[in-house]
C-alpha cells in the first residue's frame, strides 16, 4: 500500500449495511446505513445533534474502540475493506487517503508543543523524508489556506491564540497534505462568518487544483451547504440515513419531516426584525462600561508591560435591552465579556453593575446577588461541567450556590427541560456521555435557570443545531419581553444574521476598538466601517441575511 497508488474510478467510500451498537446499552447509534461516494463528489451529512454522524465518521476513520462498540456491516475505502483491520494496517490508509477535520479542532492541539511544530509533525507522518524548505512551504500554505497569517502561528503556543485562531489551526492540520478524501465534522461551528466563507472558498480552490478530491462534510448549517454548492445531501436521523438529493431538492421538497422542519426554521431565522424598538431610557442603565482598557501582563524581568487587547470601550445596557458584540474572532469580544463576569481582572476603567462597581461585590451575600443576576453562556461546551458529577449534581450545585431554593430548582427543571428538548434521563448521566449539542443545551439550562437580570451569551449558537437554535431564540425573546422582569443580554456573535433578529443595539468591534455602534438599521444599511461591511458580505454569501422580509 504505497502512497503513490492512485485511486481508480471505483468509489472512494462505500458503506454497506453498517450498524454500530454501543455495547453497554445495546443502542444502535448507526442503524443499517448504506451509501457510497464517488471520486470527486462533494457530499454533506445533515442531521440533528446526537443523530450518530460523528460516530459514523469515527467508524470510517477506524477510530472506534472495539471494546465499547460493536460494528456489523462493511466499510470500503478505495476498494479496500477497512472494517476489521488492525490499527497497524489502518495507518497507511488513514494518513494517505483520508484526513479528517474534527469537531472543535481547537481541542486537538497539544498545549505544550508550538503550533508550527505540530503542523510539521502532521506533514512528516505522511511524507517522512521531505526537505525542510518544502516542509516550511507546505505548512505556510496550509496556514494561509485556513485563513491565518504566518506571524500568528509561527513560534506560538496554542494558549496564546484566540479560540477562533485555534480552530483555524486545527483545520490547517488537516490541509497540510493532499488527501483524496477529506472528512470534516462541523468545521464551521465556532468560526465567524468571514472565516467560514474563506474556508469554503479555500476548499473549492483545493478541489479544483486536485489537492482534495472528495469532500465529505457533516454540518447542521444549511447556509454552509448552500455556499459550498453540495451535489449530494444525506440526512441522518436517529441512526438511519436518507438520501436527500442535491441542495435544491433539500430546500424545496425535503424528504424527511425533521429535515423539513430544519429547512423551515432556516427561513424563519433570517427574516429581518422590522419593528426596531425605541431605545428605552428607563433611568440608570443595568451595566455601564466606561473607558475600558484591558491587556494581558507580559511578565518580563525588568518591567511589567501590558499588551493591550481592548482599547477604549464605552457602552451601556439598559434593562430589557439586547446588545450584540459582533466582530471577527480574536478581536476582543470574549475578553470584554470575561471582564464583566469577573473571570479576568486588572482592567482599567470602570464597569458598573446596577450602579455599583463590580469589584465592590465582595461579601458572600453581595456576590450571591451579583451572580444570580448575571449569568453566562460559555463558548465551548466541552468542559463547562465537572466531569465527575452527573448533570443533575452539577446543576443543583450551581443553582444552590446562587441561592435558589429546592422549589425554585424544581421549577427551573420542569420549565426548561422540555423547552430545550432535553430528557430527564439525561440528568443522571455524566457529561462525557452526552453529545456536544446536549451539553450546550444543559449550559443554557444552567444560565436560564436562575432567571437572571443580565445574560452574557458568548457565541451560544455555535454548537447547536437549527432546532435548538430556534428554542434558544424563543427563550431569549420570551425573557426579554417579560413585563415583570425583563432580561438584558450581551450577545457575542459573529453571525450578523442571527443578531439582526434579536438585538436592539449592535457594537462592531475590530482589533480591540469599537468600530461602529448603533441600532440594527444603522449598522446594516448605513455602515461606514469596512469591518462591518466585510461581515455583512459574509453573511450574505452564507445566505443568513437578506435585506427584504422573506415569506416562508
Amino acid at each position, binding site marked *: 500500500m504505497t502512497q503513490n497508488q492512485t485511486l481508480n474510478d471505483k468509489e472512494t467510500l462505500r458503506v454497506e449495511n453498517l450498524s454500530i451498537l454501543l455495547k453497554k446499552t445495546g443502542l444502535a447509534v448507526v442503524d443499517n446505513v448504506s451509501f457510497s461516494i464517488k471520486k470527486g463528489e462533494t457530499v454533506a451529512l445533515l442531521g440533528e445533534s446526537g443523530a450518530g454522524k460523528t460516530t459514523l465518521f469515527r467508524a470510517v476513520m477506524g477510530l472506534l474502540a472495539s471494546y465499547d462498540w460493536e460494528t456489523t456491516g462493511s466499510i470500503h475505502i478505495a476498494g479496500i475493506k477497512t472494517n476489521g483491520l488492525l490499527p497497524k494496517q489502518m495507518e497507511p490508509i488513514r494518513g494517505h487517503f483520508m484526513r479528517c477535520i474534527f469537531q472543535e479542532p481547537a481541542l486537538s492541539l497539544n498545549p505544550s508543543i508550538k503550533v508550527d511544530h505540530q503542523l510539521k509533525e502532521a506533514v512528516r507522518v505522511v511524507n517522512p523524508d521531505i526537505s525542510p524548505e518544502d516542509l516550511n512551504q507546505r505548512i505556510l500554505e496550509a496556514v494561509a489556506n485556513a485563513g491565518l497569517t504566518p506571524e500568528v502561528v509561527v513560534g506560538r503556543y496554542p494558549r496564546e491564540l484566540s479560540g477562533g485562531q485555534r480552530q483555524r489551526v486545527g483545520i490547517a492540520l488537516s490541509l497540510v497534505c493532499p488527501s483524496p478524501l477529506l472528512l470534516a465534522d462541523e468545521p464551521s461551528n465556532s468560526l465567524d462568518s468571514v472565516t467560514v466563507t474563506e474556508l469554503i472558498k479555500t476548499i473549492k480552490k483545493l478541489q479544483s487544483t486536485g489537492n482534495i478530491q472528495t469532500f465529505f462534510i457533516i454540518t447542521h448549517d444549511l447556509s454552509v451547504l448552500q455556499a459550498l454548492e453540495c451535489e449530494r445531501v444525506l440526512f441522518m436521523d436517529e441512526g438511519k440515513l436518507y438520501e436527500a438529493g442535491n441542495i435544491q431538492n433539500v430546500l424545496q421538497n425535503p424528504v424527511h419531516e425533521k429535515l423539513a422542519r430544519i429547512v423551515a426554521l432556516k427561513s424563519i431565522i433570517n427574516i429581518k426584525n422590522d419593528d426596531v424598538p425605541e431605545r428605552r431610557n428607563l433611568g440608570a442603565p443595568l451595566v455601564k462600561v466606561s473607558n475600558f482598557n484591558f491587556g494581558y501582563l507580559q511578565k518580563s524581568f525588568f518591567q511589567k508591560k501590558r499588551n493591550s487587547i481592548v482599547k477604549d470601550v464605552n457602552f451601556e445596557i439598559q434593562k430589557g435591552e439586547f446588545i450584540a458584540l459582533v466582530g471577527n474572532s480574536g478581536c476582543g469580544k470574549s475578553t470584554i465579556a470575561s471582564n464583566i463576569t469577573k*473571570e479576568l481582572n486588572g482592567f482599567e476603567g470602570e464597569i458598573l453593575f446596577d450602579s455599583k462597581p463590580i469589584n465592590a461585590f465582595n461579601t458572600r451575600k453581595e456576590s450571591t446577588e451579583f451572580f*444570580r443576576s448575571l*449569568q453566562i453562556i460559555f463558548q465551548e461546551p466541552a468542559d*463547562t*461541567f465537572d*466531569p465527575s458529577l452527573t448533570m443533575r449534581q452539577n446543576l443543583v450545585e450551581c443553582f444552590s*450556590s446562587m441561592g435558589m431554593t429546592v422549589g425554585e430548582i424544581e421549577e427551573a427543571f420542569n420549565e426548561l427541560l422540555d423547552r430545550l428538548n432535553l430528557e430527564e434521563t439525561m440528568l443522571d448521566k455524566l457529561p462525557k456521555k452526552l453529545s456536544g449539542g446536549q451539553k450546550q443545551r444543559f449550559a443554557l439550562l444552567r444560565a436560564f435557570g436562575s432567571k437572571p437580570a443580565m445574560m452574557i451569551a458568548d457565541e451560544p449558537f455555535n454548537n447547536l443545531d437549527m432546532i435548538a437554535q430556534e428554542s434558544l431564540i424563543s427563550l431569549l425573546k420570551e425573557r426579554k419581553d417579560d413585563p415583570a422582569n425583563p432580561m438584558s443580554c450581551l450577545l457575542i456573535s459573529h453571525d450578523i444574521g442571527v443578531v439582526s433578529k434579536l438585538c436592539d443595539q449592535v457594537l462592531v468591534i475590530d482589533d480591540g476598538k469599537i468600530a461602529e455602534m448603533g441600532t440594527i438599521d444603522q449598522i446594516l444599511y448605513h455602515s461606514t466601517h469596512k469591518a462591518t461591511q466585510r461581515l455583512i458580505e459574509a453573511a450574505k454569501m452564507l445566505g443568513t441575511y437578506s435585506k427584504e422580509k422573506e415569506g416562508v
Partner: protein
Amino acid sequence: MDEWLKKLEAMPLKTKLMWAIVIFIALPFIFLILRVVSSHTFRLTVTLTIDGLAIGALLYFVIRFRNLYLGLGMLLAIPMQLSTSIAFADFPFFIDHSAVSRFTSLQVPSGDYLLGTDYEGRDILATIIIGGMHAYLVALITTLTAMLVGIPSGIFLSSKNRYIQSVATSVTQFFEIVPQLFFVLIIMGVYNFWAASAAGSRLVSYYSVPIAGIAIGLSSLPSIARILENRLSLLKSQRFVTALKSSNVKPSKILLYNLLWKNCVAELLIQATFLFGAALLLESALGYAFEIGFGDLGTGGYLSWGKILAEARRSILFGENIYVIIPPIIVTLSSILGVNILGDSLAKHLRS
C-alpha cells in the same frame, strides 16, 4: 435489608471497589474492642470468625463483580490483615508467647508450638502475628503521614500565589533530593541512640513504630504531592472551574469538594495503596539489614518480620532448620505482593 442491598447494587463500580479496599484495610481496628474481654480463647475465636466472615463476604462481592484480580490481591494480603486483627484483639497473649527463652529454643513444629520456635526460643507463630501487626501499623502510619503532609503540599504547589508555591516547592524538593533510605536511617538512628541511652533509666515505650512510620511517610511526600499538583493544575485550567465560580460557588468549596474530593480521591487512593506496599517492603528490608537501627526490644524497638529473618541468618546461610525462616518469608512475600496487586487492580478500574 433488601433496600439496603439495592442501594449497594446501585453504587457505581468504582465506588464499590474503593470501599472494598478501604474496609479490607481498616477492618482490624474493630477488633480492638475485644481487649476488654479477658478470656484468650474467646478473643481468638471471635476474631477469627468475624474476620473470616468479613473477608469471605468481601471476596464474595468482589468475585461476583468479576474482579478476580482484586480478589487475588485480597487473598494474598490476608496473612497480614489476619495477623493484625488477631494481634489487635489479643495482644498480651501473643507478646508473652514471643518472649525470648533459652529453654525452648529450636523446637520443631509440634502440638505445643504450631510452627516451632526460633533460635531465640520465641514461638514462631506468635512472632509472625506480632510482626504482622507491626508491619501493618508502620505502613498505615506511613500512608497517613504521607497523605497528611502530601495533600496540602500538592494543593499549595498548584496554587497561583507565588509565595505559597515557592515554599511548597522548596519543601517538596527537599524530600525529592534527600534519598529516602538516608532520611529514614538518620531519623531512626537518632531515635535509637536516644532510646538506648535512656533505656537504663526507664522503660521506653513503643515509639519506634510511629517514628518509623512518620519517617518513611515524610520521605514519600513527593510521590503524593507531585501527582496531586499535576491533577489539580490540569483541572484548574478547565472551563468548569470558571463556570462554578460564575455560579457563586465558594472557591474553597470548589477546591476541596469538586476538585479534590470528586476528581482526585481515586488517584490518591491508588497512590496510597502503592505507598502501603512500598512501606511494607522498606520496613522489612531495613529491619533485616539494619537490625539495630529498627530497635531492640526494651529500647523501644519492635518485632518485625525483617528482624526475625535477620536473627535467623544462620539458617539462611547454612541451610539448617528451615522451618525457622519459611514462615516469615512466605508472609512477607504474600503481603507485599497482595497489597501491590490491590493497588494495580484499583488503578486498572479507577483510571478510566
